[in-house]
């Protein structure tokens, strides 16, 4: 029993990271109409910028996050300006292929600057706390609580502000949104601000929880896609719910599967979903 509770805690932790990544995936998928394969490597970039500030320059950790978020947003906007914007008039599938290339460009740039080795933010060993038999670390609780705070903030932003409503409208039906006079380029800028910013946080949290490695974000990308499809494309709150479900399922799967096969879980969920309910649990767009 306590083992299952422990896995639920780890699953919530992993789910927080996937959820933050999946918001960006579902927004770009819904608003720009293509699956952004570079999203995982945006997470990696965020993690490494924080590594540069916090570990290599020995500045405070909050400064690392404060640098990682705008740097990742900037990178996402540059990619959009230089590449994706040119393909907006062509079929969305061209943007997808381009994003695949952008992912490799980002990753090789990271490898050129930081090399291919694995790093950690801090070499100090933090002892796990114990509460009623459960093991946890303070920064793990910090990740979960920060994510919950962001979810509430995002919910308010999307529900109460004008630009948030415009984003939801466009994610739901881009043609209708354009017809009703929504400034689509402005919505796209905000898509990268939110998607890129949350990707940076997801990357930093992933690096806190595991370690830094040039392929870390790519390996999480499939889970983010699965979460976005599970929640219904274009629905950020659905993607967050999907992220938590997939994170928890991945950890629970270690009860029956060897640990090295837990990356198979998002794929299995995806296949079952595509077979029986391709619109996602919360009935997003079907196309």
């Amino acid at each position, binding site marked *: 029993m306590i083992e299952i509770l422990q896995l639920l805690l780890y699953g919530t932790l992993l789910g927080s990271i996937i959820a933050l990544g999946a918001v960006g995936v579902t927004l770009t998928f819904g608003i720009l109409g293509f699956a952004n394969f570079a999203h995982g490597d945006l997470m990696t970039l965020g993690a490494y910028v924080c590594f540069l500030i916090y570990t290599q320059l020995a500045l405070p950790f909050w400064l690392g996050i404060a640098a990682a978020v705008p740097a990742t947003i900037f990178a996402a906007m540059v990619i959009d300006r*230089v590449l994706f914007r*040119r393909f907006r008039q*062509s079929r969305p*599938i061209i943007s997808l292929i381009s994003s695949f290339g952008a992912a490799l*460009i980002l990753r090789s*740039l990271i490898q050129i600057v930081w090399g291919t080795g694995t790093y950690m933010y801090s070499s100090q060993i933090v002892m796990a706390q114990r509460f009623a038999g459960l093991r946890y670390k303070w920064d793990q609780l910090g990740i979960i609580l920060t994510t919950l705070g962001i979810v509430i903030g995002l919910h308010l932003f999307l529900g109460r502000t004008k630009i948030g409503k415009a984003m939801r409208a466009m994610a739901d039906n881009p043609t209708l949104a354009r017809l009703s006079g929504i400034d689509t380029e402005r919505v796209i800028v905000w898509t990268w601000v939110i998607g890129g910013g949350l990707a940076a946080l997801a990357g930093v949290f992933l690096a806190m929880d595991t370690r830094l490695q040039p392929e870390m974000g790519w390996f999480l990308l499939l889970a983010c896609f699965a979460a976005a499809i599970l929640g219904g494309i274009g629905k950020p709150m659905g993607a967050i719910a999907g992220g938590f479900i997939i994170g928890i399922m991945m950890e629970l799967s270690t009860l029956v599967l060897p640990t090295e096969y837990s*990356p198979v879980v998002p794929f299995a969920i*995806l296949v079952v979903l*595509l077979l029986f309910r391709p619109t996602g649990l919360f009935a997003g767009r079907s196309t």
Partner: protein
Amino acid sequence: MTGAGLFSYLVFFLTFAGVYALLAQGLNVQWGFAGMLNVGVAAFFAIGAYTSAIVTTSVSAAHLGGFGLPWPLGFLAAMAIAAVLGLMIGIVTLNLRSDYLAIASIGIAEIVRLVLKNEEWLTGGVRGIAGIPRPLDGVVPGENALVLLALVLLLLAVVYWGLERIYRAPWGRVQRAIRDNEAAARAMGKDSLVFRLQAFVIGCALMGLSGAVYAHFVGFISPEAFDPVFATFIVWVMLIAGGSGNNRGAILGAFVIWGVWAGTQFVTNQLPAEYVTQASALRVLLIGVLLQVILIYRPEGLLPERPPRPIWREP
């Protein structure tokens, strides 16, 4: 480099380019003919390589088999297993829009990578499979490297001939119709799922064949040889550079991009040894930038697609 060294490098280069050309042909059936986005090319390539290796190597405790069968059977088994896997993936994803196939196919690539690494009884794990026999060694007189090159080029020619046939046949016309306007094709009574499945399975079988050729050419395979991202990516760049939908373009793209890739190695070899990891990242960066330049300035590729003109007959 001596004359003989240069010659053997050229044979090596052409054989590898031939393997990539087979891959690009397989991808061309899926993307060029039918507009399906397979991002798991490396997975089907690896499955072909491992299948043929297991079928043809002599009995070993380190992995499943080997069954010591002749290499043509290995090639056929490689195509069959890759095709079966393609069929299973296709049934799940092909009636959805193509993004979902792309997402599902990175999942396949990931699973194949995990199985190659972890299932030692099957694949020998990280130690891989060694001692894969070289086809026609000792059977046909002459330098075996040259014989292999001839075999690769012969396979490539047969595949090219076959693909040109099906591209020009009514089957190819239906594929283009579904790719360009699925609703219209369905309204004409074409079952788009069945046609897509056929194109997808043919493409996967060709990728499996290419993997088998690769395994017998290098004689040793391990999971590291099948980097799921880069192996897939470079084939995509080859096809798009050469011209999606054009079989000759796919071959040309494979030779040109493989030439660029090999050429960058000569350049990065001039760099000091401590920059080795940076150098290989720099080469990937270059290919990534090259793809973007092609997509922006010449999306139709070097040899654009040229569907056969309809033949109008006076009534």
